[in-house]
């Protein structure tokens, strides 16, 4: 396993509050996620796809960004990532129920297909890896605007980076190859986070590729780094370094964050058909939540009373979001089924 050329221990600059914030988002995501599984078992929602096991790397990645300024292209497994970016539990719950007011798509898309323009979270499809060249294109656009001296409210004051995430199996798609090619050839302010849980549904990594994602990324002229994605501080360090590189025009980074998918691929899946009981038992050791809790306890940053407070607050927020979403009205079909909705009206500003 290779390590990045470290320009410094960025996590050393994190305050106790920062650490507690990271822990809080990991916890909130987990409780929200667990509720979704319950709702599915109760037959109240048709589908859920989970972030359980991925929270540490996702929260740390978001925490290392300039939220609301950097452009983010997440994928379906990124609940903890988007929560840390400002997506709310209610936003998520409205998606699970397909209710009016769901901010990503107005209920048009399946749950966990994130979009919030105000947060620079870009809409994505279910088609894996398509977001990789999109993010490279946005990075190209950011660099283009800077080269042309085009400033706007968003990027006048600071540099920006375009970040995408996807699973390790999705790197087999041509999209990944072509997106990284542009990132490297044009040294773009681009970061690709590959959340490597070693499975594409049931297919293990050795059937996807012959070398690590980080090694494969390097031949594109992209800085390929591998990190333990269950440790938010390690992830924060490599992510922060990647962000600094982007801001300073030093080019693109691909971060391979190793973690475990502690649950089936989705609520439609049954992982016991392809993972042994032993394996399912072993991976529990890689759960990032208790691990980071212990770390913070040992560091004296977290204690039982704070933790209880967080648990209570999380439970409260999850309950509220759940109730509100469940009782919300459904969208009116008339607002979604006319070709009038296919195109944006001509924007005067453009003429």
């Amino acid at each position, binding site marked *: 396993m290779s390590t990045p050329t470290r320009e410094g221990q960025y996590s050393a600059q994190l305050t106790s509050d920062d650490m507690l914030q990271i822990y809080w988002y990991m916890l909130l995501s987990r409780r929200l996620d667990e509720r979704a599984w319950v709702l599915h078992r109760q037959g109240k929602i048709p589908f859920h796809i989970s972030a359980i096991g991925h929270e540490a790397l996702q929260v740390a990645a978001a925490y290392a960004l300039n939220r609301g300024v950097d452009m983010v292209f997440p994928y379906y497994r990124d609940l903890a990532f988007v929560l840390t970016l400002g997506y709310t539990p209610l936003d998520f719950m409205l998606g699970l129920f397909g209710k009016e007011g769901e901010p990503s798509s107005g209920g048009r898309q399946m749950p966990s297909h994130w979009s919030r323009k105000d947060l620079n979270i870009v809409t994505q*499809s279910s088609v894996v890896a398509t977001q990789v060249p999109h993010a490279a294109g946005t990075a190209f656009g950011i660099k283009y605007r800077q080269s042309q001296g085009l400033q706007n409210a968003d990027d006048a004051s600071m540099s920006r980076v375009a970040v995408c995430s996807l699973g390790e*199996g999705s790197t087999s798609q041509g999209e990944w190859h072509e997106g990284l090619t542009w990132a490297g050839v044009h040294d773009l302010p681009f970061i690709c986070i590959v959340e490597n849980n070693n499975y*594409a549904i049931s297919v293990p990594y050795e059937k996807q590729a012959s070398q690590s994602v980080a090694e494969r990324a390097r031949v594109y002229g992209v800085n390929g780094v591998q990190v333990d994605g269950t440790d938010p501080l390690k992830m924060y360090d490599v992510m922060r370094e990647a962000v600094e590189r982007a801001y300073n025009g030093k080019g693109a980074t691909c971060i391979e964050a190793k973690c475990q998918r502690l649950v089936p691929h989705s609520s439609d899946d049954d992982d016991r058909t*392809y993972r042994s009981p032993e394996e399912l038992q072993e991976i529990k050791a890689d759960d990032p939540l208790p691990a980071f809790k212990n770390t913070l306890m040992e560091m004296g940053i977290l204690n039982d009373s704070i933790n209880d407070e967080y648990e209570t607050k999380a439970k409260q927020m999850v309950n509220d979001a759940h109730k509100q979403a469940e009782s919300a009205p*459904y969208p009116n079909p008339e607002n*979604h*089924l006319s*070709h009038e909705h*296919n195109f944006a009206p001509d924007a005067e500003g453009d003429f």
Partner: protein
Amino acid sequence: MTAPAKIETKTLIQALTEAMDEELARDPRVFITGEDVGPRGGVFRATQGLYEKYGAERVVDSPLAELSIVAIGLGAAIADTRPICEIQFGDFIFPAFNQILSEVSRFYYRSNGAWNVPMVIRAPYGGGIGGGLYHSQSIEALFSHIPGIKVVMPSTPEDAKGLLKSAVRDPNPVLFLEPKKGYRAIKGEVPEGDYLTPIGPANVVREGSDLTLYAYGMMMHYARIAAERVAREDGIEVELVDLRTLVPLDKETVISSFKKTGKALIVYEDNKFLGYGAEIASILAEEAFEYIDGPIKRLAAPDVPGVPFSHPVQEAFMINPDKIADAIRELEAY
């Protein structure tokens, strides 16, 4: 579930699994590849048990890359094997679109008949399953416009088994589209053992003199329900044609039925604009003009970029027996 000897009632997906099982047993050149087709047995369970029975060399989990699933199948086919390539959802076939249009469908023609490509591409299609924009698409129109590949769409378990076995043995590429909403919902009698349903002929499922209803796949079942209802409630006798094969199209059956009824209602769950039904309507307006006795109607999905997820919106989007029955009555009243 007991049935006369050698005939059993099975679901659509059971019939498909049985067809693949029998073809794997019959011809050692046949192998299966696709995402999660191995130990997982496919996300819809179409290949369940086949990995255990035939091994990792013949039931091959592919990388997550559809372009390669199709292209590897093509390359293997010309090396005298018989690949069955599974695309997990029809929605995810588009990374392979260039391979299918530019390569699979053209090998035979562009080589002046020297290189034929005996391969099957299976893909579940269709909406109404809470899949949203990307797990619900009907993709038949795009591929039916491409000369050089056969497009098959069974509606019953018996046809599904017989047509899939014919597809595996066809010396040409066959795109085999399966109505996923009906995988378990559609049940029917399936003869045991080896039989072939020919690729090409349409099937007149119901005779009638008042108007012709054209349908295929999942819509065939809704059309049948609607046809029986209007017969009961309104005494309208509908002739129902299940196209079964979209390419090559059974023009003769399509036209002869229309000559009998003079009225046509074409039902498809894809977007209306340039959907498959547009070709049926055009053929009738061009080649059976003298028999036209009313507007040639198409009942299809609204022209928005996908099937919405939210349940009531999805239901409003989808064609159903009520909508078909209403369209029949309206046309008949014309």
